[in-house]
């Protein structure tokens, strides 16, 4: 058997793959947070809860309406995005003129409400969501076994992240968006409906979380706590990466997932902690984050 650093290669590569999967979720969630923060200047604490909502909506679509995984990949982001529009228009919009810390407090409240409601409705035990038949099984690559679904998740996440990056950095819409981030008043003077743009930015950010939720449903059991487990790690990811750069959030997310995967090979007890320790280290040497602008 091939050994790498005294560890069997299949084990090491398997953990790296697991790390990549976690990293895929960190990347999608921190990307959404960064997009929302750029435009609204608010950290969306409810991001984890909306990710969890995405998983639950996928489960509901399957069990109440018989709608399967692939349609859910399109429908769920739309539904979660619509929920985002509702949230932004009703309770988040009044906060733009005050200290951004209140945005964090308010969205924390939203997260509590959503989690409490799902816990009341479905308990904390977790509901299983089957891997779709066309993605079950796996491929023996010789050096390791690759479960098809896991490969699919990493690929889908990478494509969605890349598409978001292209939209923001390379299209006309993205250019307007970035301009509005820099100076909303000036962009409005050019006749752009900035408030509507803000609403759809928020919706887009949380739709990403919803999409991630569908992908997560077959991997983790669908349960009310899945959001909170992710959101705090994602905050650390955001602090490490800094929210100045879209590409930065994506790269940081995937990289930290891999670091976490490697840690669970060499020191399993530290797997939960390693990302926070990396954050502490980054704060020491580069307080504004790896890709952050001066804040």
């Amino acid at each position, binding site marked *: 058997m091939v050994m790498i650093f005294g560890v069997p290669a299949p084990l090491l590569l398997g953990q790296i793959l697991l790390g990549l999967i976690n990293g895929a979720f960190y990347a999608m969630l921190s990307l959404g947070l960064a997009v929302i923060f750029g435009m609204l200047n608010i*950290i969306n604490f409810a991001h984890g809860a909306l990710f969890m909502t995405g998983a639950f909506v996928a489960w509901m679509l399957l069990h109440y309406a018989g709608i399967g995984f692939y349609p859910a990949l399109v429908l769920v982001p739309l539904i979660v995005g619509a929920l985002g529009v509702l949230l932004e228009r009703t309770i988040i919009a009044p906060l733009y003129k005050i200290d951004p810390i209140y945005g964090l407090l308010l969205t924390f409240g939203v997260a509590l409400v959503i989690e409490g409601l799902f816990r009341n409705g479905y308990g904390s035990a977790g509901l299983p969501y089957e891997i779709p038949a066309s993605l079950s099984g796996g491929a023996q690559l010789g050096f390791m076994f690759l479960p098809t679904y896991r490969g699919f998740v990493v690929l889908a996440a990478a494509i969605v992240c890349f598409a978001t990056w292209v939209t923001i950095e390379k299209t006309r819409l993205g250019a307007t968006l970035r301009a509005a981030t820099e100076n909303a008043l000036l962009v409005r003077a050019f006749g752009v409906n900035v408030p509507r743009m803000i609403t759809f930015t928020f919706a887009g950010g949380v739709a990403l979380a919803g999409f991630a939720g569908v992908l997560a449903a077959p991997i983790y059991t669908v349960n009310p706590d899945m959001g909170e487990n992710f959101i705090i790690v994602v905050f650390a990811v955001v602090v490490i990466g800094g929210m100045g750069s879209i590409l930065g959030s994506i790269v940081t997310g995937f990289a930290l997932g891999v670091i976490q995967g490697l840690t669970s090979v060499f020191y399993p007890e530290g797997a939960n*902690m390693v990302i926070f320790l990396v954050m502490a280290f980054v704060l020491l040497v580069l307080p504004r984050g790896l890709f952050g602008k001066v804040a």
Partner: protein
Amino acid sequence: MRGDVRKPSHDYLVGFLCMLACIVIAPWVLYPLFLMRVLCYAIFVMAFNLLAGYSGLVSFGHAAFFGMGAYAAAWSAKNLGISAEVAVAIGGLAGAALGVVIGWLSIRRTGIYFAMITLALAQLVYFFCVQVPFTHGENGIQQVPRLKLFGAIPLNGSMAMYWFTAGVFILCFLAVHRIIHSPFGKVLQAIRENEPRATSLGHRTKTYKLIAFVLSALFSGVAGGLLALVFGFATLESVRYTTSGEVVLMALVGGFGTVFGPLTGSLVLSAMENYLASFGSWVTVAEGAIFIAAVLAFRRGIIGEVMAKLKVSL
């Protein structure tokens, strides 16, 4: 995040005497155990408020100091054969020691980054507590004795423990009041209002913020240690991020940067939790709804609104 910077006034003295009277009368009206919980959390909220309300640093990780204080006090109460006030002091020291490390790291950023960093570091402390043997994992440290005050007065009876808790609360209250109205406290408030300007006046703002952070962690540890003695256990629940959220909510409902806000917030939220305890997760939903309502409709909190209505400073 406005706190009043004026001198302690007549209004304040009246408020303080009313509070003392309430603390003395309360155990004949309400359950002492409930009141002790309210007072412990009020100390915790005062500690948080010292940092958030007066220094402008809103931490989302204060459960780390509270929980560490609880564990340290519970462990030493069980194993060291000390008296009650020493156990609570050990809780405070444990909180302060952790505060030095977490504060030193997190004051490098401000605003929402500060909130996220403290949350993440507190989660690190949580996972640490899950792993290490001395916390006894999911079970927590159970059957913690209430000990004797000064090694002589037993605190097993609920009234004796109540007076001890009330005494610690009042000491903390006066200490926090002294800090806020000291020259040190004035500089903190100046930093909150305009940090570059405070720097330009020659103050080392980083040092001030770190000291405020450590003091806040110290009082949080005292609150956690006291709660561990009151209920006789210290569990993972006290280190969880939900506890951090709870203290933020209590401070917000009472009023950021007000002297009497912490006790008010602790009382209101504890009463609600007590009332809704049998309804399962509806407590979480209610807490979330209060968060939303407080941010949207009464950011000044109960005491802040009263202050504005009556034009007094509390």
